């Protein structure tokens, strides 16, 4: 009979265990089904030019593919970090997502250009194939063009240090 009085304590214990688990998981992380898969093919052009740019241009070395736009406020947040990475020799390909070429170029002129190649995706077609939720998003590709990591939202110092940099180093060796 006395046991039923212990029931609330037992329920509490279960909940605490559940929450301890929950605290170690970020509910915002939505695993991308594309990780470990080859990057989807696309055929676009460079911003402000008619020169084509396709998936083949991404092969041969590890690099970052960064979706951004001139209208995106959060892109300003990660911009200084991207500039720093670009200065240290990391190759970043910028996909100007749902943006006009003129606006995109003006934005880069004003804030600085961290991208070795700037690709126009005015209709967001590549973004759709790559599963982009919103800008900024950054994909890490290895030399074979396989997506090894995806950062949703601005790339942070911590994410760079803990997640991306080791993958880039590994990609170099492989």
């Amino acid at each position, binding site marked *: 009979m006395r046991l039923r*009085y212990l029931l*609330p*304590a037992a329920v509490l214990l279960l909940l605490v265990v*559940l*929450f301890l*688990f*929950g*605290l170690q998981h970020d*509910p915002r992380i939505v*695993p991308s089904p594309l990780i470990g898969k080859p990057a989807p093919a696309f055929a676009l052009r460079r911003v402000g030019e008619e020169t084509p740019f396709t998936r083949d241009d991404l092969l041969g070395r590890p690099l970052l593919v960064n979706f951004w736009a001139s209208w995106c406020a959060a892109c300003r947040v990660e911009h200084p970090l991207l500039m720093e990475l670009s200065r240290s020799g990391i190759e970043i390909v910028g996909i100007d997502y749902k943006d006009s070429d003129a606006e995109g170029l003006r934005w880069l002129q004003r804030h600085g250009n961290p991208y070795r190649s700037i690709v126009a995706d005015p209709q967001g077609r590549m973004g759709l194939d790559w599963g982009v939720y919103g800008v900024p998003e950054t994909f890490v590709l290895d030399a074979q063009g396989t997506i090894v990591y995806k950062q949703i939202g601005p790339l942070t110092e911590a994410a760079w240090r803990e997640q991306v940099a080791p993958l880039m180093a590994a990609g170099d060796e492989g």
Partner: protein
Amino acid sequence: MIPEIGHFALLAALAVALLQTLIPLAGVWRRDSRWMAVGASAAQAQFALVALAYVCLTWAFVERDWSVAYVAANAHSQLPLMYRMSAVWGAHEGSMLLWMLMLTGWAAAVSIFSRSLPRDVQAQVLAVLGTLSIGFLLFILLTSNPFDRHFPVPADGRDLNPLLQDPGLVIHPPLLYMGYVGFSVAFAFAITALISGRLDTAWARWTRPWTTAAWLSLTLGITLGSWWAYHELGWGGWWFWDPVENASFMPWLVGTALIHSLAVTEKRGLLKSWTVLLAILAFALSLLGTFLVRSGILVSVHAFATDPARGVFILSFLAIVLGVAFALYAWRAPRFVAEGELRLFSREGLLLLNNVFLVIAAAAVLIGTLYPLVVDAFGLGKISVGPPYFNAVFLPLAAPLAFIVGLAMAVGWKQVRAAEIWRRIRWPLLLAALAGLCLPWLLQRRVELLAVAGGFLAVWTLVMAFEEPWRRWRARGAAGLMQTPRAIWGMSLAHFGLGLWVLGVTFVSLYSIERDLRLAPGQSAELSGYTFTLAGVEPYVGPNYDADRATVTVSRDGRLLAELYPEKRLYRAQNNVMTEAAVEHNPLRDLYVALAEPLDNGDWALRIYVKPMMRLVWFGGVVMALGGLLALSDRRYRLARVAREHAQTAAGVPA
């Protein structure tokens, strides 16, 4: 300088909280009434100190002190004064300070209004509240200090989340917190009963007004929150079963159960351990709500202030406080013996039944809220539980509940004769059935089974709410009404509010119409007999935002009903776009217009809703809270106090 004073006040409050916990408990142990009395002065001093800290933070906001990191993150030089003051609780740190202000406020209130409690009871209640204070003050000081400075000082603040820049949000969080935190008093009384092993009708009478006060604040807070979401989020919905809404709804359900089971414990000396358990649970769910909102463990539209590191602290605190409480319960509760027998068909039996429904409903909401976490824990993927689950579970629980609410009014305490009950309920039943059948047809020209059922339950509750005053009037005329205690009037009013709410929810859920439109300036569209015309869209410059403001006229049968100004706002500091819907309303229907987005050629996409009886949902909530207020003002609580004081002085009882 001012922020440092605030910080120092919080440190001093922590010291006082330690005194408030330790000295009264030692006093109870040593049977020293002077030591016990320290609790009251400590509670008041602590409240003064936390209030000082709160004023300091408000001052920093009013003066736009960007060197305070929290102020810089949540205000902007162009933010109007009213929102600079409400921005104090716009994010995590300040919210916790508001929490503390409420907690110490309740404790100070207990020290003042419960002066006539036996000294040892008051000392223990205040000591328990002091313990809670220690935990939360440590939490603020160690993990979320709102007074932290930040250098270099930014040129301007980052502005308050635009969602929170709304008059509804100026009073919604304080009321909600007042309710949440108010259950701490019932919790403290419950712990005191468990420690002392004394749980009698006097205990129930002491606890009742505090529970009612907390419950009515929570009711108002939830109602306001729903009203805010309705016209600020621009989706035309009034309840989203969002985790944060659920976090406030669960303590409300259990708190409602607690109010009723306290009545049974006071009147009949029954359900004692159940009442104590509910008192602990109501506060447990408040703590849980705080944890869910503050830890970021669940994602919701409200998740604007989350940090997992803080979650660990609150979780440990929650585990300790509730662990001790439930352990005490398991140890002591079996000794509370009922003073009578419980029959199912009596008022106490029906109240127990209604309690069971309320607690099951709370459990269902809890399961739905936590289910995504469980699924994730077992590695089964990420899911979210939406309104379909909650509606499917909640409706079958709420319907019998509403019926019992009406029935219990006609049934007396102890046992009753079925024939007598039948005589009391047959006319209301008939009336409710007729109204249920006619209302949907009269108001909407379309009869749905659910609408008939909802209309029946609503009218049944509305009519039966005044069954007792009616009986008194029948028996003794005006004198009978005059002598009806305010507690009864309060109960009637609260149940009447519930009836209004049921009516509103039924009609707005079943008969709402919405339409997405594309309109060019000058064009109009018709929805359910109303003609909406887009007169034009003009730019509008607000204090800290730029907007497109549309003028929409609504007419019916050629008669102009209203001119509405829905807006699409761009808040400058954060570059956030917000939808500001415009609503024209009367008790029978809401006309709701939201600007969606600009299309080419100067056309605009608009969203239009006609929502019958929408106002009743909130009006019902307000009436429920007013009922609580009326019950709270019953002179019985005051008379009982005076009588006890006399008894004490006469007997010369020290403690």
